[in-house]
């Protein structure tokens, strides 16, 4: 079978996907987290996925990573099923919370090399190509000085850079970052977004950043998808209107508008822009967030 030409294919192709978590107890019903999601992410895009807590962002990420299987629809990553893409090392992933056990007596370099070592046969050593990828990741994330430092001795920022270096050590084509700027101040977010710019440009990566923070999203993304159980919007950040945000963040609209100063008059489909501050404009959106 021919390998799909990865330059011609969308980085991520999501078609009619739905997902429901199974019931967790007697008498409980499964929770439908996502329904009717169709989205195509082109290569070299920086896509921000925006949505409220519980809106299904992390679930969508797990589906793209192949950790969960959709109940309906299909997902492909560079033409492969997500599990295949993961096995081929096409996806790098930074989780929302770093859940690693930092008591382990491991150096920064050992942690960064973990995904590549896990693929080795027991008797194999890292190839020169693999070692070069690790060195490149260490250089790009500026953790060269920390190579031999114990993983538990890093600051929060150093640890995050180490984990991003680990995510790109496998030479992925898609980098998935789940809430990477949670709890980071504005200066930190700006540093982070320029870091992501550099990495993505240098390595030709497609990047998906999941966030519920508008500032983080606008700083990083050149495309935006708004997700609250279903997809409300998928376009450039300029097209984000208060009406769309009202749909997605039904209860949080005021503070968000205050934070990013989105121009209500840009609500292009809306007859009366003044309405957009407080109400939706009657767009036919599926799965209204409540």
């Amino acid at each position, binding site marked *: 079978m021919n390998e799909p030409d990865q330059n011609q294919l969308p980085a991520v192709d999501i078609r009619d996907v739905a997902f429901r978590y199974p019931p967790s107890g007697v008498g409980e019903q499964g929770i439908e987290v996502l329904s009717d999601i169709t989205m195509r992410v082109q290569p070299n895009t920086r896509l921000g996925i925006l949505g409220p807590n519980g809106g299904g962002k992390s679930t969508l990420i797990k589906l793209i*990573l192949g*950790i969960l299987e959709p109940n309906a629809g299909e997902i492909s990553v560079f033409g492969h099923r997500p599990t295949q893409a*993961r*096995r081929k090392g096409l*996806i790098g*992933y930074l*989780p929302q*919370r770093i*859940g*690693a*056990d930092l*008591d*382990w*007596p*491991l*150096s920064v370099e*050992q*942690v960064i090399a*973990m*995904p590549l*070592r*896990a*693929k*080795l046969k*027991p008797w194999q050593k890292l190839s020169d190509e693999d070692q070069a990828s690790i060195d490149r990741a260490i250089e790009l994330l500026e953790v060269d000085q920390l190579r031999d430092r*114990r993983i538990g001795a890093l600051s929060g920022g150093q640890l995050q850079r180490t984990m991003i270096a680990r995510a790109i050590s*496998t030479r992925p084509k898609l980098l998935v970052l789940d809430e990477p700027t949670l709890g980071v101040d504005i200066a930190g977010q700006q540093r982070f977004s320029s870091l992501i710019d550099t990495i993505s440009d240098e390595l030709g990566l497609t990047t998906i950043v999941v966030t519920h923070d508008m500032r983080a999203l606008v700083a990083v993304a050149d495309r935006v998808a708004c997700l609250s159980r279903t997809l409300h919007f998928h376009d450039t950040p300029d097209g984000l209107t208060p009406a769309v945000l009202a749909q997605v963040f039904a209860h949080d609209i005021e503070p968000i508008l205050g934070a990013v100063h989105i121009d209500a008059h840009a609500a292009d489909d809306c007859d009366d822009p003044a309405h957009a501050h407080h109400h939706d404009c009657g767009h036919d959106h599926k799965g209204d967030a409540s």
Partner: protein
Amino acid sequence: MSIFHADHLPALLAGLGIALIGAPLSVFVVLKRLAFIGQGVSHAAFGGVGVALVLGFAGSSVTDSVMQSIIILSFSIGAALVIAALGRSNRGRIDTAIGIVLSASMALGFILFNIAESRHDHDDHGHAHGAHADEHHVIEEILFGNILDANWNMVWATLVAGALILTALWWFRHKLVFWSFDEPVCAAYGVREYRTGNLLLILLALAVVMSMQVVGVILAAAILVLPGAAALHLSSRLRVVMIWSLAIALGGTVIGFVIGDASHWPIGPSIVLVQSCAYLGALGSNKAMGALRSS
């Protein structure tokens, strides 16, 4: 010294075999916080003893012993996997799962032991006495063990199990370290979390069963904790930690043997006490180094 007497050679070799198994596993046990699972599995093995006794395997012949070991081993591996599965389905509350499996297995073990005992009471008197003695001996051995009872069969069994465990640890070392270090993320990099976790639990169950036949249930769990716990205070490099763990496990066994033998103390507890002292020493030296660095 009498420990180098030929009669004591199987005991010493079995002890060293257990140390060889305990050294690398204990590092995983401590870092992955599995110490309580070790306790759970070793006590759950009591259920396996009950099953073996009811089926008539009291360890009175070689075949009997082998069958008894197989039953106890299967039961313990089953218990470890049930603990893992219950823990996952109970939103990760592994302590509840251990509590349930440990007590249920102990209860089952005692009931089956009683059934086996009362069955012999109804048997021919001539056999009953011998069978009773066998059962009590088995229970006592399982609980407290006596390393000096180790025979060459036990040495071979320990060496085979040790070789199996060490080979598996070496073969899957990268996946096991990745899973132990970062379980929530390893699946995203193709390391199957349940499969890798179950592998470690199976190796742990095998180690527990081998250890308890040599030093008893109560001491087996200690041997699967102490060397790693001590070694982790002595280095921040995994490779060096493993070497320290091995040195403490093997050294503790030999020194425990010598002290126990010289002072006529039971050997198993002497080994555990020596390793406990090594732990305190390692903790103390770590604190002292920390104080020196900060001064």
